[in-house]
């Protein structure tokens, strides 16, 4: 019987983390090197964790399927990273960042975790600057800030439009230093395909060497997963092509609970779809909403070019509906508003897109200022679409972007399986039902630099886990299972390609488990996904062998997991009879179309336990709000 213990320490919220750090057990410096820790992932969360654990003296084995640590998906983050520094003297504080995040998450996050995140946010910026991250600066040489959706203060630090890249280069450099010093050993082009659990504790992983095809076993005293999010379940998303859910999903099937799988974020400012061959969707940073104005025509199926639509016939719908936050309304709200106007037939040329217009900002600030702020984003836009956004408004549409759900973790970031820690986007912990812009980078680095180094020591000191040899029968068993799956995939030789089936899954997810959901659609989705899963196992075609590079085999393996996770997302969405954050159930809305939360019945984290034959058991962690009192989330 699983008992969910959040392990949130007692005491005033502002003292919890300090007290907890004091109470956590320590490992003596000379003993640290006797402990081996596996870290999977080298994004912001994984690279920062590897670096910090290495600095402390642990023996760290780090894995990534990429050829280089610097290619992790974190590299693509554009907009920025939040921190409660209050350098702008505009009223920011740890408490305000905490408050904004709890409210932004629509009261479905754990208060204590969010407070801790806000509390360490300032140290993240200090740490990054000391590593040489070239954040944007003002003429006086001090750090510059901008604002992001869901906040009324300027607390976002940025490095042109490439913040994720610069932060990741910094974190990877810190990890490289530990590789240089010999505490971290990095294994590239290795994909984790399973978790080894012995006597209920995480003891190691099984990976595929993506070059030789060999299945390798690694054991450790503890395993840290920092493997990112699962937006690619939708096939088309803003995530990189190879982002996947394999590490966390297969750990889920080995006993780790999966929390709030249906909480996914649809980002409002992405490029609209161009055609069938499309492989991914491109995000246009939300920072553009600082100066761009979002609008559509007041008339249905308006076939005029945007510059021919006069001012009085334009509907700046975000400014109209949410006057105090306007174009900077939170993501879930902005996305839904775009869907609404497009469903009314008022999208660009009657289709699925809205305008993001810089005309007024260019008039007010001059082209130079706009170029300085967004030059590279404008270039990206022009290379992809062939349109020049200085002259014609951008066309944007919402797209799957981030997954708030993930493996359940306690306050120590440990899953219900002792020895299995989960960091970054892969866990469920801090963003509730909706993540605020520029908070994912903050969370990844908070987890890796400032939380895991403390909580890992406590685990090792309290549980005293042993190191199991990889010749242990359980390692052999897991390895055999992995090899069997590979063999099976290669032997089906059916008629459908992996991408073809993935696209079909994506369509089901987008139509029925996407921006708006209802009972009927979700039930249909569940049965369609089950059928598609069966079809996959009888009609997929994976050419080639398992003994060398086989990218189709890699994608097929990832799709197995999406075909299972997709079902659980629908089940979770069906269970949650309320609308909150990114989860909008059409049955639960106010007359004006705003989301209707049900705090009485759903103020809990839904943590799902995997049972035989694709059944899941629901465990609930009740959420208590002592500081930020749940209220209707209004941005009007």
């Amino acid at each position, binding site marked *: 019987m699983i008992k969910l213990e959040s392990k949130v320490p007692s005491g005033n919220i502002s003292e919890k983390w300090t007290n907890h750090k004091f109470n956590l057990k320590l490992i003596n410096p000379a003993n640290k090197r006797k402990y081996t820790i596996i870290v999977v992932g080298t994004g912001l969360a994984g690279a920062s964790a590897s*670096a910090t654990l290495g600095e402390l003296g642990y023996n760290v084995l780090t894995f990534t399927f*990429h*050829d*280089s*640590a*610097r*290619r992790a*998906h974190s*590299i*693509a983050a554009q907009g920025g990273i939040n921190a409660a*520094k209050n*350098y702008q003297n505009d009223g920011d504080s740890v408490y305000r960042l905490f408050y904004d995040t709890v409210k932004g998450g629509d009261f479905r996050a754990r208060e204590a975790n969010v407070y801790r995140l806000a509390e360490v946010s300032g*140290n993240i*910026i*200090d*740490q990054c*600057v*000391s*590593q*040489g991250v*070239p954040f*944007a*600066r*003002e003429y*006086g*040489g*001090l*750090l510059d800030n901008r604002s992001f959706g869901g906040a009324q203060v300027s607390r976002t630090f940025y490095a042109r439009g490439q913040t994720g*890249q610069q932060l990741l*280069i910094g974190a990877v*450099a*810190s990890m*490289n*230093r530990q590789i*240089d010093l010999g505490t971290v050993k990095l294994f*590239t082009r290795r994909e984790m395909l399973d978790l080894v659990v012995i006597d209920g504790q995480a003891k190691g992983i099984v990976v595929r060497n993506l070059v030789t095809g060999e299945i390798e076993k690694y054991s450790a005293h503890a395993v840290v997963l920092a493997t990112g999010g699962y937006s690619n379940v939708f096939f088309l998303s803003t995530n*990189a*092509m*190879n982002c996947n859910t394999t590490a966390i999903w297969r750990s889920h099937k080995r006993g780790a609970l999966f929390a709030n799988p249906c909480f996914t974020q649809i980002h409002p400012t992405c490029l609209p779809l*161009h*055609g069938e*061959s499309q*492989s*991914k969707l491109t995000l246009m940073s939300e920072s553009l909403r600082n100066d761009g104005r979002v609008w559509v025509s007041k008339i249905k199926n308006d076939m005029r070019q945007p510059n021919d639509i006069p001012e009085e016939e334009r509907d700046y719908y975000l400014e109209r509906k949410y006057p105090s936050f306007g174009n900077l309304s939170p993501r879930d709200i902005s996305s839904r508003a775009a869907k609404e106007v497009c469903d009314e037939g008022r999208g660009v040329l009657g289709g699925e897109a809205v305008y993001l217009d810089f005309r007024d900002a260019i008039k007010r600030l001059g082209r130079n200022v706009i170029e300085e702020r967004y030059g590279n984003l404008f270039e*990206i836009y022009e290379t*992809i679409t*062939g349109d020049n956004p200085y002259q014609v408004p951008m066309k944007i549409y919402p797209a799957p972007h981030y997954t708030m759900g993930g493996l359940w973790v306690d306050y120590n970031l440990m899953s219900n399986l002792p020895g299995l820690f989960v960091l970054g986007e892969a866990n469920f912990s801090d963003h509730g039902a909706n993540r605020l812009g520029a908070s994912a980078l903050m969370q990844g680095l908070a987890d890796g*630099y*400032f939380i895991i180094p403390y909580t890992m020591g406590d685990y090792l000191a309290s549980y005293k886990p042993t190191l199991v040899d990889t010749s242990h029968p359980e390692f052999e068993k897991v390895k055999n299972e992995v090899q069997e799956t590979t063999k099976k995939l290669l032997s089906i*030789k059916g008629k459908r*390609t*992996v*991408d*073809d089936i993935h696209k079909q899954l994506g369509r089901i997810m987008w139509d029925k488990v996407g921006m708006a959901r209802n009972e009927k659609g979700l039930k249909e989705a569940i049965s369609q996904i089950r059928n598609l899963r069966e079809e996959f196992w009888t009609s997929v*075609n*994976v*050419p080639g062998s398992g003994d*060398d*590079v086989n*990218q189709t085999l890699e994608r097929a393996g990832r799709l197995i997991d999406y075909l299972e996770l997709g079902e659980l997302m629908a089940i979770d969405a069906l269970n949650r009879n309320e609308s909150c954050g990114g989860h909008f159930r059409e049955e639960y809305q106010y007359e004006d179309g705003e989301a209707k939360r049900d705090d009485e019945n759903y103020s809990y984290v839904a943590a799902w336990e995997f049972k035989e034959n694709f059944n899941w058991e629901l465990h609930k962690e009740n959420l208590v709000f002592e500081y930020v009192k749940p209220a209707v989330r209004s941005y009007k």
Partner: protein
Amino acid sequence: METKILKLKLKIWRQKNANSVGSFVDYDVSVSPDASFLEMLDELNNKLESQGLEPVVFESDCREGICGTCGLVINGQPHGPIPRIATCQLHMRNFKDGDTIWIEPFRAKAFPVIKDLMVDRSGFDKILQAGGYISANVGGAQDANMIPIPKDVASEAFDAAACIGCGACVAACKNASAMLFVSAKISHLGLLPQGQPERYRRVDRMIKVMDELGFGSCTNTYACEAECPKGISVKFIARMNRDYIAAKLKSKTLEQV
């Protein structure tokens, strides 16, 4: 949007593994001008897979020009004909109906082919693991605004830090030199106040490893800058050379003491 379909002939390098001999194989494709270059290859691969044939191995991830994973030589040019973009940002509207397109991997002694268009660029990381960092432990950092950095200095450091580690500079260079990449890394850290304490040790160690890995020397032809998707300037190579000489002088002086 244009709906015209382009019919193209592709000549793609196929090579089973590092030890086998590769050759060009012809493929005919039809593609929308709105598709990206890599989406065209996706479509080709999808077709090959549906016939039970092994698809063309090529790498990509972000498809936004930032991760540096993609990298093909297209008609003789790393990242293709359009300046300042990575392969994944190239769109088919830049080609004409009936064109023949040659597609090859990045070629360099230090970048051996793994399969088809996939190469091993791990040499870059080995160089970075030999000092390409600032030693700053977590926990000890002072407030981020304690050391003001003039905007132009921060901006120049950023220009260098914009490198995506793709390796096009090496592929473009007749000597397969990695100087542009290494100088970008060294300048990023060496321009910032935080990078000063290790400035000379860093350049010394990184260049040593670069030489050991078999990257060639720089003879100032500047093909690297022309093909670099991020427009990294060769002025950083000059800067690195100055630092390298200073490092050598310093270590000489130390030896004499």
